């Protein structure tokens, strides 16, 4: 049933894999996400402006989905910051996935700084409508 996965699907993981570790003082931007599911799949949409495809890393490590990306662009010489809402270059979020998700079939797409991750549910575990027999 879809409802079984609700708590699990959106729970954030405190686990960081070794690959994710950066120098301790590096600031990380907590990527804002939308997470929702329908009967077929779970969707995660993340805002990661400034991240190009080659600097994006979406991985499933065991039951943890890790989304990470680094923005990159060249500042001109002699530039000074007048105002900076954004003071870090690294985006990262991770989530614990639940068993009914078929992570092998995860699809990710990046467009205009928006990452869309779709994880289908295993066919056998999708909710089925039960016909109620009546007299």
């Amino acid at each position: 049933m879809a409802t079984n996965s609700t708590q699990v699907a959106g729970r954030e993981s405190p686990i960081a894999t070794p690959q994710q570790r950066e120098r301790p003082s590096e600031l990380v931007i907590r990527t804002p996400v939308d997470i929702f599911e329908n009967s077929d799949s779970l969707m995660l949409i993340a805002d990661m402006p400034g991240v190009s495809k080659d600097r994006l890393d979406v991985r499933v490590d065991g039951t943890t989905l890790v989304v990470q990306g680094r923005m990159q662009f060249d500042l001109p010489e002699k530039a000074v910051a007048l105002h900076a809402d954004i003071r870090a270059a690294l985006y990262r979020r991770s989530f614990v996935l639940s068993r009914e998700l078929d992570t092998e079939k995860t699809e990710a797409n990046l467009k205009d700084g928006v990452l869309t991750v779709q994880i289908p549910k295993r066919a056998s575990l999708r909710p089925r409508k039960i016909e109620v027999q009546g007299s």
Partner: protein
Amino acid sequence: MFGRFLSSQNSLLDEFWRLQQEMDELLGDGASSSGGIRSLPRGSFPAINVIQTPEEVQVYLFAPGLDPKKLDVSIEQGLLTISGERQIRVDDNSTYYRQERFAGEFRRAISLGEDVDAERITATYRDGIVQIRLHRRESARPRQIEIH
């Protein structure tokens, strides 16, 4: 990006910002760092960074998933105003667990000072970032004074 301003040569400043960010998160309503009168609390959309070189001012809008044609950028007397709308389609057949991404209309203004040339502006959109470049007037640029 902008990491250069926080590089190791400034590790004390780095530490300060990290502490401030933590405090902002704890207190929930940290004001934006520059202290400008039009600055908004952390998390406002779109986030804005501004840098200046001797020749120009560059404004970066962190505006992912926007149609740049629907973005309204104007400048008047050194005040840059950005307004627009980000539409996020909500799927009625889905169950939502998190909706953290900004949706709806937005408007932000930032003062760039008097020396930007409002006639010479270019804007590009790439990977969800709008980059606006404004030339500074010649008279406002720092000049090297030669001593004879």
